[in-house]
């Protein structure tokens, strides 16, 4: 049962990545467009459908939950392999070109958050 959960997650992941990769391919950009997003949607839909049919076993959920809990350690490992040196060594231009966009985009946060859902 545990492995069925992991397999469900893996299936959603692979199908989502294929959709993202194909979308990028057909748009003519050599890049993945939203593969992770599609995979997440698939997982949410699959879980809902299985629950409706009473096929979603608790242990299956645990197979997915394990990875969900591994998320922070994985992110810590990801931070440890970033090219931090290049960020520091490319001077003021790179530093400002990284900081200013964040500052400007943050201005939109309250405006968009207040917008009505439709």
């Amino acid at each position, binding site marked *: 049962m545990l492995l069925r959960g992991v397999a469900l997650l893996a299936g959603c*992941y692979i199908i989502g990545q294929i959709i993202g990769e194909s*979308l*990028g391919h057909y*748009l003519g*950009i050599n*890049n*993945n*467009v*939203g*593969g*992770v*997003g599609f*995979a*997440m*949607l698939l*997982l*949410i839909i699959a*879980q809902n459908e299985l629950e409706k049919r009473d096929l979603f076993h608790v242990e299956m*959920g645990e197979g*997915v*939950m394990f990875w969900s809990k*591994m*998320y*922070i*350690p*994985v*992110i*810590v*490992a*990801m*931070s*440890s*392999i*970033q*090219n*931090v*040196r*290049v*960020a520091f*060594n*490319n001077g*003021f*231009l*790179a*530093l400002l*070109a*990284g*900081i*200013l*966009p*964040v500052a*400007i*985009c943050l201005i*939109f*946060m*309250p405006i968009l*958050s207040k*917008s009505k*859902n*439709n």
Partner: protein
Amino acid sequence: MEYIIELLDKNGLIVAFLVTGIMVYFSEGISVKLTNKKLPGSAIAIFMGLVIAYLGGILTEGKSGIADIPGLTGFKVMGGPMFRDFAIVSTAMGASFAVIKKTGSVGILSLFLGVIFSFIAGVGIAYAFGITDVESLTTIGAGACTFVVGPVTGTAVGASSDIIAISIAAGVVKSILVTIGTPFIAPYIGLNNPKSAMIFGGLMGTTSGTAAGLAATDPKLVPYGAMTATFYTGLGCLMCPSVLYFALKIIL
């Protein structure tokens, strides 16, 4: 000694589990003892990761932070895109489809605003530094989106390699800033619910930065932010070397 390093590299992923586990353990301790739980342990651990990545970069002059140090190469697997994306997808379990559907349109709007305004900001800074050719400006503007969009765009429009290096650096600075800054800025920008997390992901775009920053703020928000952020790099790669490049060419 050499055979031990060889053994560690052969079991790289397991070594990475162990070292990361130790880092997380110590950062939990620091969180409780030194900051009275004001700074979450995960935020400290992520920051610690960035520090050792910098040290790794200085020691080896490599590109992959700590993973360039012999014996620690397994970090490349554990922190690489496969595990990262797999773990991000798993966080979607239990996320509310209704919220995502409802916030969908604002999320898409935030994506476009995020790409366009990051680009403009990057171009503006580059211009202020005396860069005037359209190709270089476009590349640095693209780098202000994410560190993937920069080199993809730079290659497409034919920018020089030092400009591409600057664009990557700008993207990395952005990702690090979002990683560290999100927990601090969150209370001021209302970043405490799924809707605002989706907007935040769309505006910031850097998947690694948003995912790590939200993890340090509130892990429940991660799936929503990651959901939109994952479309950002693709959209940036689509728009920067085409629409935005031509628009800039017309203006200048």
